């Protein structure tokens, strides 16, 4: 089903499947991915990640530090990533907002690292329930200036673990910060998981890192300050060139799309809901399929564009007011109607909700054809 199998380089351990919480599976996977340090700050619904590291890292020779704020945590990441460490932080929506200053600096200074957002309902202090309301923030930059993160959207506890490896591999390949955009449900729920094998992610050379300047080379400087606008434009061009290359890393999953007349598009937990909605709708006789973007940035524009030549309409399902739907519309380019349904503020749509929406749309569309 998955379109780009060769891009998932995770080798599984011989361990039996375990029953784990998403947050804990992610943290354990990070230790197995050989992270040097984790810096973070407690916030629901992801505090288990920090708790897991504080329990495990001392035993396994890694660094864990509970920072005084998300602001401090992301700047510790900047320092530690700049110094050549394989490092990560995690938080949830309000905390990720606080980190945006540092993330912009990290993107500009081109430092590889992993930032995990276990998305909760907003805006403001919001709620601790799951949400996908941070899609715009995650995929369009989030902080100031023209930049992107590589964004992976897991839809299971297994992917919470696997995507840690993928995120570091991509971040280090492109010297670009990567984000795992999960949600409160994926963080909290327990599922079967086969953890990636420890030590299976090779260390990469980082000749640009601040490790102390030997006489044999020029000094290494980690900075995002280029006061000469011509130079700053050059850095921007370099970033944009890199994002162009990153488009090759696009990943998505296609479910039941071969004969589909209706295409659902959903990521993360919403895609899990939609998978069930596909089954319900097909039982009712509607030929429905699902396209699940796995990388939210880069976005599977071409796959959606191709789909627009095959299906009658799109229905985008999100746990927000309609954010990814804008990217779907851009990819469809007006070739087919694109509809949206979703819940907000920590509510999750049910498969029955989505199936009912499909039925409603089919009826209203065939009525308008009769007129």
């Amino acid at each position: 089903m998955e379109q780009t199998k060769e891009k998932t380089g995770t080798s599984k351990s011989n361990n039996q499947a375990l029953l784990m919480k998403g947050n804990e599976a992610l943290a354990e996977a990070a230790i197995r991915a050989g992270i040097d340090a984790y810096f973070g700050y407690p916030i629901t619904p992801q505090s288990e990640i920090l708790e897991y590291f504080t329990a495990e890292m001392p035993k396994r020779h890694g660094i864990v530090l509970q920072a005084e704020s998300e602001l401090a945590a992301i700047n510790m990441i900047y320092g530690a990533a700049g110094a050549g460490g394989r490092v990560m932080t995690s938080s949830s929506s309000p905390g990720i907002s606080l980190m945006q200053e540092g993330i912009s600096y990290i993107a500009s200074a081109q430092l590889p690292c992993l930032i995990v957002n276990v998305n909760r309902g907003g805006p403001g202090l919001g709620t601790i329930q799951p949400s996908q309301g941070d899609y715009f923030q995650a995929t369009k930059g989030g902080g100031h200036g023209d930049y992107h993160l590589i964004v992976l959207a897991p839809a299971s506890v297994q992917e919470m673990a696997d995507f840690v490896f993928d995120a570091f591999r991509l971040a280090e390949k492109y010297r670009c910060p990567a984000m795992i955009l999960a949600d409160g449900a994926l963080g909290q729920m327990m599922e079967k998981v086969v953890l990636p094998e420890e030590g299976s992610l090779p260390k990469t050379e980082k000749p640009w890192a601040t490790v102390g300047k030997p006489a044999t080379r020029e000094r290494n400087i980690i900075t995002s300050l280029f006061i000469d606008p011509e130079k700053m434009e050059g850095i921007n061009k370099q970033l944009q060139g890199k994002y162009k290359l990153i488009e090759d890393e696009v990943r998505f999953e296609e479910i039941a799309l071969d004969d589909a007349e209706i295409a659902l598009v959903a990521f993360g937990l919403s895609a899990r809901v939609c998978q069930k909605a596909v089954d319900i709708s097909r039982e009712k006789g509607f030929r429905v399929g699902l396209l699940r973007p796995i990388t939210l940035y880069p976005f599977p524009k071409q796959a959606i564009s191709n789909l627009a030549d095959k299906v009658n309409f799109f229905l985008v399902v999100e746990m927000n007011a309609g954010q990814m739907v804008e990217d779907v519309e851009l990819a469809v380019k007006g070739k087919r109607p694109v509809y949206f349904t979703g819940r907000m503020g920590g509510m999750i749509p049910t498969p029955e909700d989505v199936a009912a929406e499909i039925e409603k749309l089919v009826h209203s569309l065939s009525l308008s054809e009769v007129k």
Partner: protein
Amino acid sequence: MQEEVLTNGYELVYKKPSTLTSKPFHYCPGCGHSVVHRLLMEVVEEKGIQESTIGVAPVGCSVFAYDYMDIDMQEAAHGRASAVATGVKRIHPDKYVFSYQGDGDLAAIGTAETIHTVNRGENILVVFINNAIYGMTGGQMAPTTLLKQVTSTTPYGRTHEQMGYPLRITELLAQLPGAYYVSRHAVHTVNAVRKLKKAIEKSFDYQKLNRGTCFIEVVSNCPSGWKMTPLESNKWLEENMFPSYPLGDIKVPKDK
């Protein structure tokens, strides 16, 4: 015996340390930054630790410190230098790490990072340049601006009713168990420069002991921001700054 070096027929008695780049300082005439930059790099050269020293530059006039110091360096966001230095030091606990920060950076926007870095006793050196003003943005009030001092945002002089009191953050930090060595210096006279150099030397030595944060405040001037000649600014420094920010050791290691 030092070898005699002749330049254009003259004996060379003083030169730029090899750890400073050949880029001319951009600082205003009379500003203390270039002296402190030089002292740091003299110590790095003399100790032979260029290969194991990593610096963190702030936002402010010394934002380009990495243009002058010939060592690996990172440029931090405004106020976050000590958090960045924490990240560097945790990855390289065997290296010498220092942050270099001004009063707005360290004692206003970065107060939380400063206090918690020292409270954790991070084994780094924090160099704090206090000139009671935001120099780079054009002379606005800093947390360390003196009462009645005129700045571009206290045009009638700072009043405590409106803007509180000058923040003596160095005394505050000295109370924390994580602070190992806390000392206040200046660079307005040759004697003061020599004392500061000794303090920097000690701070680098202390880093190897892993016993906590070394914090050196340098009470400095800002001739441009204070709208004075360099000589006037040094006189004003002695008459006005030193009574509020007295020089000397504030906390010295008790253990040997």
